[in-house]
């Protein structure tokens, strides 16, 4: 239920993003999801990848600053108001969300979410019968 996510510190310099994916691709690591949070000077690239520990070591070797953190990934119907209902479950129980990213295809929306209390968030989502994605679904491809 808890998904390991890679966070990579990047300066705002052209070509750095490409370098990360290039390095991972060359090592046969698949990226299932990603997002970039940026300020005017630097950014954090967040990714869910097939082999998080291996990916971290490879990137570190290439002198990137990398951390592994935990996120939750779940599926909502790709319909108006669906995500709002899910998030209400969390806000009703005072779980705050640090960030999330997602994408919809066909009937489903896939969301990765970082919260201050990952375990409690998972419990709440399960209690409301939300469809969670397991690590195995994402890591293997």
């Amino acid at each position, binding site marked *: 239920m808890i998904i390991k*996510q890679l*966070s990579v*510190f*990047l*300066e705002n310099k052209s070509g*750095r993003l490409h370098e990360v994916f290039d390095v991972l691709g060359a090592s046969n690591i698949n990226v299932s999801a990603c997002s970039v*949070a940026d*300020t005017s*000077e*630097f950014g*954090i690239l*967040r990714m869910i990848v097939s082999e998080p520990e291996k990916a971290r070591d490879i990137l*570190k070797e290439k*002198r*990137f*600053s*990398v*951390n592994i*953190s935990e996120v939750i990934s779940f599926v909502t119907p790709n319909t108006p108001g669906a995500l709002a209902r899910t998030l209400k479950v969390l806000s009703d129980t005072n779980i705050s969300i*640090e*960030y999330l990213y997602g994408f919809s295809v066909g009937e489903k929306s896939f969301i990765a979410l*970082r919260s201050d209390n990952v375990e409690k968030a998972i419990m709440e989502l399960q209690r409301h019968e939300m469809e969670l994605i397991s690590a195995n679904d994402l890591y293997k491809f």
Partner: protein
Amino acid sequence: MNKSIWNPHFETMSREQMREVQSERLRDVVERVYYNVPSYRAKMQAAGIGPEHIQSIDDLSKLPFTTKQDLRDNYPYGLFAVPMSEIIRIHASSGTTGKPTVVGYSRRDIGVWSEVMARTLTGAGAGKEDFIQIAYGYGLFTGGLGLHYGGEKIGASVIPISGGNTKRQLQLMQDFGSTVLACTPSYAAYLAEAIEESGIDRKELKLRIGVFGAEPWTENMRREIEKKLQIRAIDIYGLSEIIGPGVSFECPHQCGLHINEDHFIPEIIDPETLEVLPEGELGELVFTTVTKEGLPIIRYRTRDLTRLNFGTCACGRTLVRMNKCTGRSDDMLIIRGVNLFPSQIESVLLGMDETTPHYLLVVDRVNNLDSLELHVEVEDRFYQDTISDLQKLRMKIQNHVESATGLSVSVKLVEPKTIERSEGKAKRVIDKRPAVWS
């Protein structure tokens, strides 16, 4: 005889004896420069003094100062006091601006240099059983050969690997069993990192002493290097105009650098009024070389800021001690009217757990106002995964620097290992401001 003191006679003599030695040698050198170096004679005549006015070291302050500009004006050999046929070695320091500073040594000068370097290495705790890996540059720079002659004089096994080629440094350090490492402190920090990364087991290394100099470094940096390399890091001081390394050195008590004052008489002056300051006051260090033949130098203004301590050291040496130099008046930046030494920034960063000593200061002038940007590398242990972690880190560094220096600084976080690592003297400052003089 104390084994850890190379020359007990001179290194432990009483103050009266030392004053006598210095006075006698001073009279001699003043005569030599007066009669052999036209530029010195002209300056002394302009000041209305001759050799007869210099009887003891109490008369030292009557003599005019010498500056780097004097060396440039007399480029290359104008200040040499012996015929070129007596010069057996020439070194030069590459000036960042203008012509290099050229220094010449007679055979006796090389002997003096070996002697003061033997005292230095002995003071650091090295002896004939040691293997000294000399990672200072060999060549026109005085670092490599200065250490080399001193190492040979004490009978150690000298490994003249010179600077750079880090991989080879580590290889030989392991294979040859180096016990002493001699290089710049910034290269030592770089090697420490390289050792960590290479996965070499520290137990495989026999390293026990570091002899570091040629650039100012802080106590924090010393502790960092000592911890990482598990050695005792000894500071040595010198400048080519005086002789090169060997002007002063730390003993294992690490409580100031003993000046080889029977060869190089120190004074501390106020850099503004040029008055000699009393013992213990902070000011610019000035040296008079009293035994050198090739290029004797009178009251040379080093631009280094320090203070003197005449108390006897726990090691038994009576040689006057100077504080570790952490700033040069040359390195000093004036930002919005405030004096700033790069070493202050380094102290702040080393004092914070979240940062590494690798930094770069970029000074610029935007709309007639000085701007100060500090580049700091972000390691993964400094943040979790949110922008706010990084913003907090930035603010924290900014606040620490501001409270330590009184200057507002804009911190730029950069990727690991992107700030240039130095294999020689570290480049800590880029000053983009247009020069006001030409």
